[in-house]
């Protein structure tokens, strides 16, 4: 059943895809840095009234936890990627490569880019898992 992006249901389905599909198990096995927070900037025009923060606790190809988190929690984590809803939508559709988007300023990274670069396969396979989610976008 299709789930709406971005919602807690979508995040749960995303985790399920990470857990079930082989992509991230292989691509993310080098990641030992723990939590990444993805922030979708508030966009009230489409129904996102506040920043939507996705907490992903990742370790060596496994997703230990995925949930929506509060703004207060965001500051505690060393890897935070922030962007406009329209950019994230393109990422989920696999039409925007996230590391290239960071370099171009389309997504904003707080954290050490070389660490992300070393784990480029992890980033790519996470996006792949997102594309497996049967998604309905909130603005459609």
């Amino acid at each position, binding site marked *: 059943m299709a789930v709406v992006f971005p919602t807690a249901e979508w995040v749960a389905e995303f985790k399920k895809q990470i857990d079930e599909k082989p992509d991230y198990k292989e691509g993310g096995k080098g990641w030992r840095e723990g939590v990444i927070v993805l922030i979708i900037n508030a966009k009230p025009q489409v129904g996102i009234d506040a920043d939507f923060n996705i907490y992903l606790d990742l370790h060596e190809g496994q997703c230990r936890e995925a949930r929506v988190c509060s703004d207060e929690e965001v500051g505690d984590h060393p890897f935070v990627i*922030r962007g406009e809803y329209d950019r994230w939508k393109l990422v989920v559709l696999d039409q925007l490569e996230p*590391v*290239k988007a*960071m*370099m*171009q*300023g*389309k*997504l*904003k*990274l*707080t*954290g*050490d*880019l*070389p*660490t992300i*670069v*070393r784990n*480029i396969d992890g980033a790519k396979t996470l996006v792949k898992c997102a594309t497996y989610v049967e998604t309905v976008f909130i603005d459609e």
Partner: protein
Amino acid sequence: MSSWEPDSDFVFHMPTKVLYGPGSHREIRAEMADLACDRAVIVTDRGLRENTDLPARIQKALGATCVGVFDDVEPDSRFEIVDAGAAFAAKLGADCLVSVGGGSSMDTTKAISIVMTNGGSIREHLAVHALTGPQTPHIAVPTTAGTGSEVTNVALIKDEAARTKFFVLDNQIFPRTAILDPTLTTGLPAGLTASTAMDAMTHAIEAITSICRNSMSESFAVQAIGMINGAIRRAVEAPEDILARGTLLSAATMAGAAFCNAMVGVVHAVAHALGGVCSVPHGIANSIMLPHAIHFNAVTDAEAYAPVVATLGIKASSPLAAAQMAAARLTELAASCGLQTKLSQVGVNRRQFQEIADKAMADGAVLNNCRPVAGPEEIVALLDAAF
């Protein structure tokens, strides 16, 4: 002949105002007023201050609006230097930073502007496009023709302990104004003239072959290659030649605008690592590695070099042969300007190869290379070829 792909997306960002002309540094106070600033701190290095009159000329042009000179910039400044510069400028109530020097002075100034605006230490701001507003205004006055930093959104800062260069990449750190005055470059020694020009040549060539290559960057880069190729020897042989100096200076800026928007590739990934591990000057590292990277890349993507080959006037039986001839031509060009062409000539030893390769593989530039780099072993092979 073009190598970019019209169906790929790109972003081209070039917000820096460029002011070119012999004697143009005398307009700096007016440029500062245009930015609504009236208290400038000059950021430079002690060697330039003690051995040339360049910072003094800028200080004179600024007059009473210059409230101090911070001259502790080092080649690839350390975090501590950035923080000290920010504290120095803040204490003097500066509202504008004027970098005078090469890439290290300009990059240090970009980093100082971040700390001045946001507080804390530069260590807390090592991010990618995370700044949320304008930073302390920065006027860049390059005294070398190579880095292109006067029109880029990146600042490289060295962590001495980790022997690694970190960078801040952010559209908020473009200098507001770049003053290109070729009279400020006539005193540049021959070796630095050549190595910085080859740095610019590398920027241009990697911008053309990067996977992020695009039509606008390519137009800047192709023009820059032709200008550098035509002027480098003259500037080395006749340092007072303003035409040659001005050609290199404007070409370096154009190459900077090109790579800022198209990114660079494996040459820069390795050069950054050579700088971090072995302290090889950036321009020399680029100059040595460039021909070897062309050989490496051309095996799978010789067509990417078509604009380079055409600009250098090379004709060959195939794209691969043409790229290989371009590599040979660039080696000859560097050697004819008195530059080293092997890593063994610049203090690198083979025992450092693995560390260099590992650092190069973690450098963002490697992702943009036209031939995907499979792993550190391919970097080691490149280093071996360049040794």
